[in-house]
């Protein structure tokens, strides 16, 4: 595999050199930059417009989420995880709740499982929509952003109706759900599915066969499946490189094994494949939602969990397929009401490692495209 070690641009800086000996042009992109999706800082070492190497400087959004967990009870920490990947808060919650449930050896009742899957998949669509809009905006197509935000709004409305919050939902509780699905939930979701299906075609109409889009994305930011595995890259990025790895299928959690869906994979591992993979994933999520919303069983929504949670001493690692990749929670319990240690394996953070490898010998404009295609959320990278 290609050597992923970064030639640190900082070390090679030589201020005497000029643009002509452009090997030495160091450009600081961010943390305040329109295309770094928040506060990512990238230091680029350029030869003219060609990227020789880059280094990511992160931590501008560090809030110490993992440390906070050590001073909170299991229940109290639940809302914090929403603030990591704030565009896919529901998935974060699902991962945390399931991890603690594993620790407590309880399982959420079937009705709760169904509603969880519906909400999580809705969130996946919302996350992908946001990714699509901003990614297209980075590449210069400004219109898809507004289309995706218009449609994402419908998802947020469902969230709002369900739990009162739009972004940081805190939708799930350890052991199930706090809120019963509201009156007309199923109808809303069904309406949404039929509403958004043509809209996804609309996005594709604007982009999929657009010549400029093809030129900007095909062959850009290529990463092989082997490199992905070596770097721990997961999610759509890994699948676009041809590795069929989706935790929903591989290590089924919740009740994903009840549903029929496909895991799309790409072949070239370039930005275009990642785009296509995510577009198909949105459709597959709709498929899951359709199946789930038709079969929500009656029953309780909360399992029997103690009011004061004192999981037995031990440790657990639980991972789920978040929209951006494998989101893992490693929780160590010392038998008290507070976790001894919570370690989050955030997909964005791990995927960001691949940026340097993917951008080598590409142009500055491609860096923007690759940052977009990695679909990072800085809240999750920095935690």
């Amino acid at each position, binding site marked *: 595999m290609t050597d992923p070690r970064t030639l640190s641009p900082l070390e090679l800086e030589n201020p005497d050199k000029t643009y002509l000996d452009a090997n030495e042009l160091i450009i600081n992109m961010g943390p305040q930059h329109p295309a770094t999706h928040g506060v990512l800082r990238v230091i680029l070492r350029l030869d003219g417009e060609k990227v020789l190497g880059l280094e990511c400087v992160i931590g501008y959004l560090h809030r110490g989420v993992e440390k906070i967990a050590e001073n909170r009870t299991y229940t109290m920490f639940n809302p914090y995880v929403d603030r990591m990947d704030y565009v896919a808060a529901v998935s974060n919650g699902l991962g945390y709740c399931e991890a603690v449930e594993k620790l407590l050896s309880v399982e959420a009742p079937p009705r709760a499982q169904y509603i969880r899957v519906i909400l999580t998949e809705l969130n996946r669509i919302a996350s992908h929509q946001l990714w699509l809009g901003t990614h297209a905006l980075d590449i210069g*197509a*400004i219109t898809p*952003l507004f289309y995706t935000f218009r449609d994402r709004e419908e998802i947020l409305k469902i969230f709002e109706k369900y739990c009162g919050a739009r972004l940081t939902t805190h939708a799930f509780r350890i052991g199930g759900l706090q809120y019963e699905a509201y009156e007309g939930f199923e109808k809303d979701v069904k309406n949404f599915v039929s509403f958004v299906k043509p809209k996804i075609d609309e996005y594709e109409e604007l982009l999929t066969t*657009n010549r*400029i889009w093809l030129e*900007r994305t095909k062959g850009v930011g290529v990463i092989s499946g082997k490199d992905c595995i070596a770097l721990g890259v997961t999610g759509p990025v890994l699948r676009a490189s041809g590795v069929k790895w989706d935790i929903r299928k591989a290590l089924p959690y919740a009740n994903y094994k009840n549903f029929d869906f496909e895991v799309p994979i790409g072949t070239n591992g370039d930005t275009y494949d990642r785009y296509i993979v995510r577009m198909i994933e949105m459709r597959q999520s709709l498929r899951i939602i359709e199946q789930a919303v038709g079969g929500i069983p009656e029953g309780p929504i909360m399992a029997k969990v103690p009011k004061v949670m004192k999981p037995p001493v031990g440790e657990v690692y639980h991972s789920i397929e978040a929209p951006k990749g494998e989101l893992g929670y490693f929780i160590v319990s010392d038998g008290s009401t507070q976790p001894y240690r919570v370690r989050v394996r955030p997909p964005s953070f791990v995927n960001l490692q691949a940026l340097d490898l993917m951008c080598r010998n590409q142009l*500055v404009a491609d860096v923007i495209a690759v940052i977009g295609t990695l679909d990072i959320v800085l809240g999750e990278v920095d935690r």
Partner: protein
Amino acid sequence: MHVIIDYIQSYLGSDQTPGAAGNWFWATVYVLLVFVGLSVAVIAMNWLERKILAHMQVRLGPMRVGPHGLLQPIADALKLLLKEDLIPSEADKTVFWIAPFIVVLAAFTVFVVVPFGPTHAITDMNIGILFMLGVSSLSVLGIVTAGWASNSHYPLIGALRSSAQMVSYEVAMGLAVVSVILMTSLNPTGTGTLSMIGIVRAQQAQGTWFIFKFFPLGLIGFFIFAVAMVAETNRAPFDLPEAESELTAGFHTEYSGFRWSLFFLAEYSAMIAVSSIAVTLWLGGWLRPFPNALQGARWDFFFALFPGITFLFLGALAIFSASRMPKHPYFRIQTLGLAGFAAVLVLIGAVLLYPPVSRVVQDVFWFSAKVAAFMYLYIWYRGTFPRYRFDQLMKVGWKVLLPTGLAVLILTATAGFFVR
């Protein structure tokens, strides 16, 4: 009063541009008219771009300042004028100060030879189109110096990108223009012309717009120009010099307030300028549709109605919008304003329907209508296309447009040879 009207009429009856006639008074009037007209056009374009783009993107655009945001451009202009004028401490102050003026001067000077009608140009130069291409290419100097003077990486890259881009696309543009100049020489006397008015007259004499000449050669040439002109004006999808997501704002990253607004002004007037070149060269300039096929007094009368009807239609739209304004005391002033605007539009429309007036303005109207179509295209591109990457941009310029342009040139020459 009578004397003045007589004087104006005697002027309108003449068949020369004021510059050619050496008439200082009318030349000055025309310069002022063009300047005011351009400024109004840029302001209108600003509003229209935001509104049209907004409606393409399922949103409303400016709605707060004035009815339907009509006063938004004025508010923006005021804000820009009142903003603090920042000059980076490490910048080269003189050059930083001069650069926007170079761009604006280049963008405005071009209009000296633009023919809005057979006599409605400031002057008619023997080298008209050469002058236009030359002066519009000067704006690259302003952009390059702006990027350099800012003394910062992003503007420098933006400036280098833009100079490379503009110089490259000038070549393709020039080739497309040359093929048109070849076409102008296909008349009995066998001499072509570079004069803008002469080019339109040649289309009139040959009975076809050059876009349809030697089909599809004229069309391909036009297409090359239409692509190159978007690149020349640094607009989407070729807006790399100011690619927002890559270079924050490209060469004018460090500019703010008044100086920034000069760049803005120059960009839009350059768009209008290159569009008027395209209209003059390929779309028959001021000629109304089918000047030869649909001749006669009745057709003349019919086409002379268009300017008035357009304004009446716009006025009707405004009245309709005014009637749909919320019936709330808070919106009363806005509704009244919109109704007043509608009344002005209707009044202009009515005046334009008056035959002596409509005969005089219809040249200008057709020219402006064609240019407006191009302006719409610019907005449409921006709403639709992603941005090219730099190497792809160069590839398109040198490997696609340039060879095609050469081929079109040679084929046009061959076709012209056989036609003669």
